[in-house]
């Protein structure tokens, strides 16, 4: 067994539920996982080897083949592309004579792409050995190339390369109310669990992760469920392209979130809470760990919190490893248990059968921040904002073609047009609300309101002006879903790939009428028969665009007649590569085809 493996296993007490954390630590130490490592880990955790290999093969950030000493992953969200990421990526590749996905011969560098890294307000962005670098420019790529070429250790790289800005552009209740550590916990202790639940019920708070389920109902169900122990999970795995509000909440309002988690623990009777942080936010790990340590020291975490006998609660940080599907609550729980992030069959729901089969509440970061606010200031204060059915405020992540991308907090019910005006959007063609799985709004719909009863959303607004091609947007979203499908169910596993392939053909002028027809067929199939929300919403971008931007599709058709769905000359490329030929005779010209 290599020294790295035994040290990492010991650090995690040979606990199989820590498998994702173990693989993360090992990746950080040695850049890739060898077959021998996987065997040793399986032995050390008393798991079947195939199970460990299956987990290693599931998460994007794990590599089972050698990668460069510097592993660069370009964020490949639509907003990164709009800000020029494709050109910057090519520049880095050219500088090292590399192709995407390859490792340089000296083993120094590998370059690949990854899904949205949540830096949409300061893209294009990349991860170098897991560390985020935002605001890429040609100058920054040049500097990074030089550092890599010199094999400069990343600790020596200029610190400003890594600085992440919060860009809070509009503050309402959550972002402007002063808050002191422990304030909400103290209020929750004063009210008691029943009182807190009552207050929460009166507030009408609905989950801010997108689904909008009543938080009080969830907590009540968990509190009343039979089990050996109860658990609380804060879902900070925001992976929806265009969403970055949780990143900002955790960076600037961490105390509110941690208080919210502790209030939840107190109310539902959980002794243990998990904060599941997406792997793309490594810069938040140290601040969170430090805050947790301070809280333990000040008795806001641990046993007998605030001196109350029996009030025991602690929080463990779990970091993801690149899998959007883990934002789905039951997949997240699987991941917390050290497994592949596959959504479970429901019922039973996590509130009765969650983490390790025990009653578990999973709440979004913003939801928990609001719980703290409600505990501190009461339901009436909370209901000052929002509509009757959507009480309170919503944090919106605004990116794309706007002058001031960033976080905007409004009371629910705000018209999309007002957000656009405040963010400085001009000549807007379309807005994607709620990320790829949400709703694509055309210009004529900008008067619609952000609220559960109108346009529900986890809070992402990506703005596209008239210069953008809607097909490119849909293609990017289709590729995202194909990359992120867990592969469990047939409709999503195959449907997302088929949709991405057809969109790719349309964007490259090789689409056919049949593709347009089949796109709708595949999208409806996914919506009707998929296993979880990822699959059932994966067809939304295609269906919304077909409904609202049909002419874009028709214009993309090269001909109304039959067009070969592949490029004949391109299909000969492998033959040219083996024969080393590049002469005219090795190419098909238009006339020849």
């Amino acid at each position, binding site marked *: 067994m290599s020294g790295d493996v035994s040290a990492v296993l010991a650090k995690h007490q040979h606990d199989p539920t820590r498998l994702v954390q173990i693989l993360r630590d090992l990746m950080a130490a040695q850049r890739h996982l060898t*077959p*021998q490592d*996987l*065997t040793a880990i399986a032995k050390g955790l008393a798991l*079947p*080897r*195939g*199970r460990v*290999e*299956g987990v*290693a*093969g*599931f*998460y*994007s950030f794990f590599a089972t083949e050698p990668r460069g000493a510097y592993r660069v992953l370009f964020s490949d969200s639509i907003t990164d592309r709009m800000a020029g990421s494709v050109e910057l990526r090519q520049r880095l590749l050219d500088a090292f004579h590399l192709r995407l996905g390859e490792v340089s011969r000296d083993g120094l560098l590998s370059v690949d792409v990854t899904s949205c890294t949540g830096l949409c307000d300061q893209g294009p962005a990349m991860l170098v050995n897991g560390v985020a670098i935002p605001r890429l420019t040609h100058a920054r790529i040049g500097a990074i190339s030089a550092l890599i070429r010199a094999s400069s250790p990343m600790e020596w790289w200029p610190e400003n390369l890594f600085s992440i800005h919060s860009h809070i552009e509009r503050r309402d209740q959550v972002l402007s109310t002063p808050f002191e550590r422990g304030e909400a916990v103290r209020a929750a202790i004063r009210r008691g669990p029943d009182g807190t639940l009552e207050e929460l019920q009166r507030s009408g708070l609905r989950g801010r992760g997108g689904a909008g389920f009543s938080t009080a109902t969830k907590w009540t169900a968990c509190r009343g469920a039979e089990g050996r122990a109860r658990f609380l999970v804060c879902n900070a795995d925001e992976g929806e392209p265009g969403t970055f509000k949780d990143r900002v909440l955790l960076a600037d309002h961490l105390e509110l979130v941690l208080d919210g988690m502790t209030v939840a623990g107190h109310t539902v009777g959980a002794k243990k809470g998990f904060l599941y942080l997406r792997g793309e936010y490594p810069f938040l790990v140290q601040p969170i760990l430090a805050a947790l340590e301070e809280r333990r020291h000040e008795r806001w975490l641990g046993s007998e919190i605030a001196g109350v006998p029996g009030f025991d609660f602690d929080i463990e940080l779990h970091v993801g490893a690149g*899998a959007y599907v883990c934002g789905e609550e039951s997949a997240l729980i699987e991941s917390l248990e050290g497994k*592949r992030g596959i959504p479970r*069959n429901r*019922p039973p729901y996590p509130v009765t059968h969650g983490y390790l089969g025990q009653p578990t509440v999973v709440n979004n970061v913003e939801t928990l921040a609001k719980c703290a606010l409600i505990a501190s200031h009461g339901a009436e204060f909370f209901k000052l904002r929002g509509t009757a059915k959507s009480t309170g405020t919503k944090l919106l992540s605004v990116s794309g073609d706007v002058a001031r991308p960033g976080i905007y907090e409004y009371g629910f019910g705000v018209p999309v047009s007002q957000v656009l005006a405040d963010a400085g959007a001009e000549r807007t063609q379309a807005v994607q609300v709620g990320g790829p799985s949400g709703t694509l709004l055309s210009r004529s719909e900008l008067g619609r309101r952000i609220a559960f009863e109108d346009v529900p959303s986890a809070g992402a607004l990506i703005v596209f002006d008239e210069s953008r091609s809607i097909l490119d947007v849909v293609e990017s979203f289709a590729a995202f879903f*194909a*990359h*992120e*499908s*867990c*592969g*469990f*169910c*047939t*409709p999503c*596993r*195959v*449907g*997302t*790939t*088929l949709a991405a*392939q057809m969109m790719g053909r349309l964007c490259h002028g090789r689409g056919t009428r049949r593709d347009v027809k*089949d796109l709708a*067929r*595949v999208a409806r*199939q996914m919506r*009707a*028969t*998929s*296993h979880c929300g990822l699959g059932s919403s994966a067809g939304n971008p295609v269906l919304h665009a077909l409904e609202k931007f049909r002419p874009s599709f028709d214009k993309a058709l090269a001909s109304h007649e039959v067009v070969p*769905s592949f490029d004949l000359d391109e299909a000969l490329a492998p033959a040219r590569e083996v024969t080393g030929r590049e002469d005219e005779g090795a190419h098909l010209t238009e006339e020849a085809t």
Partner: protein
Amino acid sequence: MSDATKPGDAPSLPTFTLDGHDVPFTPDQTILQAAMAAGHYIPHLCFHPEFKPHGSCKVCTVKVDGRTMASCTTQARAGAEIESSSDEVRDLRRNLVQFLFTEGNHFCPSCEQSGDCKLQAVAYELGMTSSHFTQMFPDRPVDASHPDVLLDFNRCILCELCVRASAEVDGKDVFALSGRGIKKHLIVNAESGRLADTRLAVEDKAMSVCPVGVILRKRRGFRVPIGQRTYDARPISEVAVDQYRRATRGDE
């Protein structure tokens, strides 16, 4: 069959309707299980009567009171109106089977499993005449390392039956899944990645559950001539119901 499901007692059980027929069910049954027990076939691939419903292939999709659900994992509910053989539901199922044919490499005319293959039989049952979508032609090398068993991954539909059988019945965990999305694939439990280095034996349950032709006994090929195989004689709608009843009679 338990006493509770004897025909004479049937009226005392709650029922749902399947395409207008009353179907009785016991509290532990899902829609698919109750339908099969009552002699109504609902096409399926990842479901197996001896294993806990899995719900991944979605071929058993039905409409329950207007909502599409996987019938294998949806608990039966008294009074539910279930639609299983409408054109709309059959279209959804056919699309899924076409998806499976598109993502793998399925060449029925040259396949040893032809005539015994559930994927092929379900495709016939659903009136599928082509895979319709652009074939993906994945590169999936076979594993012939084991002395008695050949693994042909080209035909894998990722139902996980072998994974489940090896873990739950054989206690060997020979099979597992790795990768994600369209790159999800079957792996074996060995550092070398070779079947020969696992504990698989021909007597294992995992040898007999594959609905397609991935796990094959060596030196048995074409012993039963094409034309005389399981689904050559009778359609899967009849065979599957018989098999279900045989399998569930024992443990009730």
